[in-house]
């Protein structure tokens, strides 16, 4: 990654131009041409430095419900349980963390009933005694570009 790449990332973290030719606008600011911007972005996506370019929707305003959830899974079963969580597109993030509980995941579902159904499913299929839920009460910050 060179200085121009970092400049592109900085610019895009401040917002994507809502114009017919957005990459040209970005290029004009950085003294490179449109195809240069596009090829740099394509390379950074291939290198997985960038995961996504596009809009981030607010799940709550779209009527979805979310929560942070945690459960304790014995070390030797983490991969097996992770494979089960991976099947649900409503489970977007899953991390193995140190401490107890050790497996933390986020869930976003179209309504409470669907959310509960997924959690029940995970418990049954993963042979999990209990899942702890941490429902958001108040949002202070979310920077989805670091998400």
């Amino acid at each position, binding site marked *: 990654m060179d200085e121009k790449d970092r400049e592109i990332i900085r610019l*895009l973290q401040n*917002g994507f131009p809502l114009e017919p030719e957005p990459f040209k606008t970005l290029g004009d600011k950085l003294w490179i041409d449109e195809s240069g911007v596009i090829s740099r972005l394509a390379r950074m996506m291939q290198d997985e430095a960038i*995961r*996504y370019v*596009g*809009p*981030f929707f607010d799940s709550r305003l779209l009527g979805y419900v979310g929560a942070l959830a945690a459960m304790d899974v014995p070390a030797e079963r983490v991969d097996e349980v992770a494979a089960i969580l991976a099947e649900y597109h409503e489970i977007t993030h899953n*991390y193995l963390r140190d401490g107890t509980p050790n497996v933390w995941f986020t869930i976003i579902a179209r309504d409470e009933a669907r959310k509960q159904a997924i959690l029940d499913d995970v418990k049954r299929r993963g042979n999990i005694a209990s899942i702890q839920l941490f*429902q958001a009460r108040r949002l202070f910050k979310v920077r989805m570009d670091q998400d």
Partner: protein
Amino acid sequence: MNLTEQEKALIRELQRGFKLERRPFLRAARAVDMTEEGVIAKVAEWLKNGVIRRVGIAVRPQKVGNAANALVAWKVHAERVEEVGTAMAKHAEVSHCYERDCPPGWPYNLFTMIHARDEEQLEKLLARFEETLGLEKPKVLRTVRELKKSSMRYFEEKAE
């Protein structure tokens, strides 16, 4: 939020991310039978009313030089949540900050996601938060392994 079928179709299209080509809005427009200007205007409207939080990029923290990433939960009295949450949210190293309802036995109610260059930086930052905000030692849940990371896709559930 009442969305038309066409608006839902546009969300399904846009949430796949922009194609890296000259006119990404035109491609989305064609896919949902709208005009390019119509799509741009709709995105601007959603950005204004909050349906879209931002339009930009998602980076992978480890790839941009952050090696120490942790979910850090703080015990904060109800009457101080506002002050402490607002203060933490101001720091660039804090990507997420939420007050959460917690299950019994879990007193750490303010959750932050913190990204630091290395373990030493992370420790320093936590110590500074403890000192300047007068907080007890937090629960630090370091990331051992990423098991899944994906973007949510809305309105793609199959009819049941």
